[in-house]
């Protein structure tokens, strides 16, 4: 192990010498080298597009700890019983087939001066261009009484996989007539309609399995994404089950006790059977380690998603602070393609086209009752700026809502194929 590491370091030193030459080359391959950290909607897409479109001219390495990636998007549908966990899991075999070197490890260090990434396993990788797409982490002390050590008692379930399964298990184990509580996050956060789709899916599950149960949502915000659509859906489908406590009624003044399983909202203590705490969010930790964050997020240039702190580092998706786009898998995927085009142009001289971004978020309220919101965006000097958008209407026919749901399923197939090949 030590010997291997020394060998690796030796190679890296040689590569560092090469880096000082005008044309940057990666160790061994003689090709420009891109390292991508994070294999979700931003990182997997960027890695795949750079490898696919450069047809072997660029050496692309993806660092992702998990071997099977469980999407956070559609995880609410698993809670509602509309999807199996297996349907949300994706392997990286397609990326490897597209020519991406996939390394399952944690990136624990970024040295931007020597252009090196350090992995938990000890390896150091050099890059000409670094793409950070680490998703989100949680802000410390955002919810009084909660930290990540409490995530088994009170799951966030805001990263796909085991947390989602835990929350589902807790939901299924609720006593008859029990209380499911959610502490909703403040803006900005991953997937703006996500908490409210989750409330809908939990209500759907409880209506069938535990109809006298109650749902309480403590929310620090006065309003939320697709609010009118969700509230209409809750009233029509889950009348009386859901109690949403917004900012006005102290929804932001909460404290939890993971041992006693209580939630205090504006001083009023409620005993809860399940407590889904979704704390305030920040960029995934590696962005902070790389020194490209300002506050909680990593500011980027809209034209190519490059970091405002370093022209050779790019930040995609939830971790970036880019302007008007919501933090979503769709957005990350859209940003990744603009970024991939720019990186390929910079490293191989291929054509670079103007940045165009788009996003659509579908949410499921009840069986065959889907709604959507979307917008297009463009790059300005200051930010990614919204161009045009739409949102589903209240009072739509069941046919329209069903078509919207079927469209969301088509999107899931599309985006996961676009990410993972």
């Amino acid at each position, binding site marked *: 192990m030590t010997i291997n590491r020394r060998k690796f370091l030796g190679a890296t030193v040689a590569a560092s010498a090469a880096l000082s030459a005008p044309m940057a080359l990666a160790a061994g391959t003689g090709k420009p080298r891109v390292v991508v950290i994070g294999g979700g909607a931003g990182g997997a897409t960027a890695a795949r597009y750079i490898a696919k479109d450069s047809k072997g001219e660029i050496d692309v390495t993806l660092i992702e700890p998990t071997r099977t990636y469980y999407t956070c998007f559609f995880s609410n549908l698993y809670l509602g019983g509309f999807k199996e966990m297996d349907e949300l899991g994706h392997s990286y075999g397609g990326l490897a087939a597209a020519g991406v070197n996939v390394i399952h490890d944690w990136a624990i260090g970024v040295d931007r001066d020597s252009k090196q990434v350090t992995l938990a396993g000890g390896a150091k990788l050099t890059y000409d261009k670094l793409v950070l797409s680490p998703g989100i982490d949680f802000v410390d002390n955002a919810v009084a009484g909660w930290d990540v050590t409490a995530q088994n008692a009170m799951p966030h379930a805001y990263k796909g996989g085991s947390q989602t399964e835990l929350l589902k298990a807790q939901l299924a184990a609720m006593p008859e007539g029990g209380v499911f509580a959610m502490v909703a996050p403040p803006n900005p956060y991953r997937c703006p309609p996500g908490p409210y789709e989750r409330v809908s899916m939990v209500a759907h599950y409880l209506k069938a399995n535990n109809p006298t149960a109650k749902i309480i949502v403590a929310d620090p915000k006065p309003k939320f994404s697709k609010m009118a659509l969700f509230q209409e859906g809750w009233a029509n489908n889950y009348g009386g089950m859901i109690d949403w406590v917004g900012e006005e009624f102290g929804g932001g003044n909460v404290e939890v006790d993971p041992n006693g399983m209580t939630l205090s909202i504006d001083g009023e203590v409620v005993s809860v059977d399940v407590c889904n705490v979704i704390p305030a969010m920040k960029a995934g930790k590696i962005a902070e380690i790389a020194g490209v964050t300002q506050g909680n997020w990593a500011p980027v240039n809209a034209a190519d998603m490059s970091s405002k702190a370093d022209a050779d580092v790019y930040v995609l998706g939830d971790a970036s602070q880019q302007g008007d786009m919501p933090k979503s898998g769709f957005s990350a*995927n859209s940003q990744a*393609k603009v970024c991939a085009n720019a990186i390929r142009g910079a490293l191989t001289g291929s054509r670079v086209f103007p940045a*165009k971004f788009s996003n*659509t978020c579908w949410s499921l309220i009840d069986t065959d009752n889907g709604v959507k919101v979307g917008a297009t965006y463009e790059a300005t000097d200051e930010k990614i700026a919204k161009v045009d958008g*739409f949102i589903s209407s209240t009072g739509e026919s069941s046919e329209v809502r069903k078509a919207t749901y079927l469209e969301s399923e*088509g*999107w899931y197939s599309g985006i996961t*194929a676009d990410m993972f090949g």
Partner: protein
Amino acid sequence: MLLDFSRIGLCVTLAVSAFSAHAESVGDPDAGKKVYRKCASCHMVGDDARDRVGPNLNNIIGAPAANIDGVKYSKALKNAAADGLVWDEAALNAFLEAPKKYLPGTRMSFRGLTKSSERADVIAYLATYSDSSIAPEAGFSVSPEILAMDGDVAYGEYLGSECTTCHLSSGANDGIPGITGWDEADFVTAMHAYKEKYRDNSVMQMVTGRLANDEIAALAAYFKSLGN
């Protein structure tokens, strides 16, 4: 003599139907599914569809008439097929309005769909089971100059990455239609129909809303290049 007569009849009917096609007649496949119940006692469509009293309707859009082996077609339909009848949207629209008038001697004992919206809807529904994924636009057209534009395939590949967030690049339909291998004119027409809000899908209207003519041409050229 009889053949000639039927050919004249066909031409007249087609001309009338094209003339009467209205902007609102672009169909809704979901509404069409309901309308299709009237057809379903004789015609199957979709996976495992078999020929029953009537032939299965998979890939009917754009298909030459009377082309399935083993189906007993009427002499009238076989004659029309020999004269080159293709089930494009205009022909289906005219046939479904009044089958026995459109094709005297047809075996199809169906009174017809008098509402143009129902015809458009059921055609849109059938189009979801057809490889030529859309019906040609009735009553909507783009200028010959726009249709004649040469698309920049490399630009189309970049722009097309926005499409493949939802549309499978394999061309498969998994809830959202495949868009590869289309005839470029059909593709361009469909995109402009969304852009002009003539076709009804809010995501497509949004995405096409900011595409310039040359960008639509580029997309058409790129997705055509991917093949079926």
